[in-house]
């Protein structure tokens, strides 16, 4: 996903950024055709994470991930609420929220940044566009510069995207107690799939 560090001062808070990206959405609601200038919005995208550790594998899904993408400006914001991650094991979900993510203190995770690509994404040309994303990833109240790769897919003027990256709990000041250190991986695989085709 993305490095927004150099331009973050131009957008002093994430609410402003979200609103900035959403302003064209009001017009989009009534638009009949899609063009690259419009900001695409999704409220039903998906983020999963997978932890592979010696004693157990842990997976959780968040189906209420939101995103705003402006292809022309190359700007993207992805945001989700930590409490919307669902686990198979309710006790694990409770520990995740209360002990590790402290989700009432840090309710959301946020990525905001830019898409870097030599081949501009053409909404009229179907295909998979491999892009680099640079920006700031905020988890557990800790901001980290993040650079990754993503695939933006255009099909019948519908846009979707996917990125997979590794997040390390210690980078975000998430403490894993020694007693469960063999249950939780030091590197968590995070997959975000954005779907701008619905809602």
């Amino acid at each position, binding site marked *: 996903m993305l490095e927004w560090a150099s331009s973050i001062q131009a957008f002093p808070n994430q609410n402003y950024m979200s609103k900035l990206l959403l302003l064209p959405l009001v017009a989009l609601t009534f638009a009949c055709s899609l063009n690259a200038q419009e900001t695409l919005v999704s409220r039903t995208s998906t983020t999963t994470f997978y932890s592979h550790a010696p004693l157990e594998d842990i997976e959780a899904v968040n189906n209420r991930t*939101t995103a705003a993408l402006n292809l022309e400006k190359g700007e993207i914001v992805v945001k989700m609420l930590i*409490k919307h991650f669902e686990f198979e094991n309710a006790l694990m979900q409770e520990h995740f929220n209360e002990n590790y993510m402290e989700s009432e203190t840090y309710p959301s995770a946020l990525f905001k940044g830019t898409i870097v690509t030599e081949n501009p994404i053409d909404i009229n040309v179907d295909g998979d566009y491999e892009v680099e994303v640079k920006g700031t990833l905020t988890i557990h109240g800790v901001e980290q510069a993040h650079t990754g790769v993503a695939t933006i897919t255009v099909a019948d003027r519908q846009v979707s995207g996917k990125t997979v990256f590794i997040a390390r709990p210690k980078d975000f000041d998430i403490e894993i107690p020694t007693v469960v250190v063999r249950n939780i991986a030091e590197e968590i695989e995070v997959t975000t799939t954005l779907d701008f085709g619905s809602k």
Partner: protein
Amino acid sequence: MKNSIKIIIGLALVGVAVAYMLLTPKGEINITKAATAHELNAGALYAAFSEDETAANAEYAGSVIEVKGILTAVEKNDTDQFQLSLDAEDDLGAVVCTLTQAPADLTNLEIGSSVTVKGICTGYLFDVVIDQAVLL
């Protein structure tokens, strides 16, 4: 029974109770019976998050709140839960309340009517999110 055996049995029972507490998820709270921490209208709640998300999180996130507002939409989400959207007096977002259980009677829910919803404020995305909600 010797006192030592009684003590051992007592400690074992305490151990079992502690283990049960640690290994049993607390589950969702009973929102209807839960004490309300804040009562406000949807516009004020949305404005609080829109203007200063960090401060609003500190004030409202995780709290049981009662929100009054004008109903603008009733939808079902992907998991078949009803979501009520309340007018946030802002073109860019709403207060979206996900009901734990479907209301017994939806016919009373008219778009444009004033409703009061009680639930847990989970945070702010494009909308302010209220989960585990009940219609008052």
